């Protein structure tokens, strides 16, 4: 069984086509990443799967349960943490989770036990009695995550769970998610950050304009993009030929040289190892460089490369 499954789903908002035939399948017990810019259709997919949004054509299932035919059945299987922390400012952290547990259908006793358990897991036990309006952004997100976990969901939908958070807090959230995966929960995670999809997701779909434009593991997607690039800037133009000679040892792909900025770009395959080797070589040949950097393919690169490929087919 798939943790969720979309088949040729179409969705319009007035004249705007939000989803244009999206099909996705996710394995159980994995983190599935939906990567795409604002307005790509990521949130629409999450809202359809979490029973909040109807669609015109196609089918959507969560753990084999049809979203349109048995929405309450789906609601028992899922947890949802949206783009904004959906917690009540006036309640304490404890009260927020406890209320959600009661509304999920747990008894008072079960709710109390589950709430304490979750606040402990999420590192909020000490702040449990404080009203949420005194919480930081990261604490609110963690609490939101906690509230969505009350029903021990088979699958969690996280819509941009780390947008707007500082790097440390982002890391905290990532760790929490990784812990939960070990307990067998599946995740659907949307993000605008390639780095996040790369770190977290076993399987990634790139969405743009309501369509899946690429799907695969992060490795496969990077291969699609031609991997990483080392860039270094020379001190003067005369060292160009020696520099290109060194660069050729590391790649069979095209090396670019910009005579204005004196920068050499070398596509490489094994990241940091190649970088160190290139530094060594430059040193051995006593070539002085002004700057040196390793570029990861960015989300921009994903779109540039994928859309340019589309154009290629059209021609």
């Amino acid at each position, binding site marked *: 069984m798939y943790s969720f499954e979309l088949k040729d789903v179409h969705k319009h908002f007035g004249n705007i086509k939000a989803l244009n035939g999206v099909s996705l399948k996710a394995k159980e017990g994995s983190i599935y990443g939906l990567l795409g810019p604002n307005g790509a259709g990521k949130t629409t997919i999450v809202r359809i799967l979490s029973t*909040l*949004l109807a669609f015109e054509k196609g089918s959507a299932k969560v753990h084999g349960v049809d979203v349109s035919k048995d929405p309450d059945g789906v609601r028992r299987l899922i947890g949802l943490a949206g783009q904004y922390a959906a917690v*009540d400012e006036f309640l304490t952290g404890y009260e927020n989770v406890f209320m959600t547990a009661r509304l999920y259908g747990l008894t008072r006793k079960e709710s109390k036990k589950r709430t304490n358990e979750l606040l402990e897991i999420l590192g909020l036990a000490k702040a449990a009695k404080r009203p949420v309006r005194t919480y930081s952004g990261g604490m609110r997100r963690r609490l939101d995550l906690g509230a969505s976990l009350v029903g021990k969901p088979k699958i969690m939908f996280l819509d941009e769970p780390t947008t707007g958070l500082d790097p440390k807090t982002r890391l905290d959230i990532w760790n929490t998610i990784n812990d939960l995966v070990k307990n067998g929960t599946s995740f659907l995670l949307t993000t605008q950050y390639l780095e996040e999809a790369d770190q977290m997701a076993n399987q990634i779909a790139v969405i743009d304009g309501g369509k899946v434009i690429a799907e695969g593991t992060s490795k496969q997607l990077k291969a699609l993009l031609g991997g990483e690039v080392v860039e270094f800037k020379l001190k003067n133009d005369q060292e160009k030929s020696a520099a290109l000679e060194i660069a050729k040892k590391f790649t069979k792909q095209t090396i670019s040289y910009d005579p204005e900025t004196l920068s050499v770009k070398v596509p490489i395959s094994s990241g940091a190892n190649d970088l160190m080797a290139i530094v060594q070589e430059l040193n051995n040949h006593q070539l002085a460089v002004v700057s040196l950097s390793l570029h990861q393919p960015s989300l921009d690169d994903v779109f540039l490369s994928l859309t340019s490929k589309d154009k290629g087919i059209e021609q």
Partner: protein
Amino acid sequence: MNSFAQALRDTLIITQRNLMRYIRLPRLLFFSVIQPVMFIVLFNYVFGGALISSISVPGGKYIDYLLPGILVQLVMFGGVQTGIGLAEDMSKGIIDRFRALPMSRIAVIAGRTLSDTIRNLVSMLIMISAGMLLGFRFHNGFWGAIGMMAVLLLFGLSFSWIFAYIGMAIKDAETAQLASFVFIFPLTFASAAFVSVQSMSSWLQVFARNQPVTMVVDAARHFALGIASGGAIWKILTWTTVIFIVFIPLSIWQYQRRNS
């Protein structure tokens, strides 16, 4: 658990959640009462002298006539709060959380209208105390006082359901607030809430006599002051029943809609 028991349980959980905000932030209640208190003081001292000759109440005090009218306005503004509260919960994503839970589909709205009715009751008790300081007295005994509060709260509850629908349809707290003025001011001013309908021009009298605010205020005065209601109690019960029949299903439909 059967679905009625679940609906009741979920409704009470939501009611409790909404009321917590007044316990944690009492100034919210304070400011929701300060405006009607201001109204009652201004009307009593500014217009009271001029208006007293046009009305007839036992004892002949304008404050006795005015307080039930002000209380109608209070419960109507209380009803608007239902729409504002739901619109706010929607914009903060809290309604999404509730809708994605396997909980009763009526509880979020019913809980909101119930907590607003409880808040109306508390505000009403404060208002009646303020009125008594200005000389207001019940002339129809204890059960008359209870009857007045009951009919006003029932009317407020029906108004809550209207604004529940409006708030969720508009989805924006500020617009819901502005939209409410368009309803409340014509309905309360072109009614028997503050002045006698007989003093209005004849075309306006037709409207004023036949709209629900006049009926509820007549019923409230009947209970509070012991004056004849002229069938206002049955009329207002009919009005509120119709409002419930129309707006309860409409609000639930709007809550369940999976359109955005």
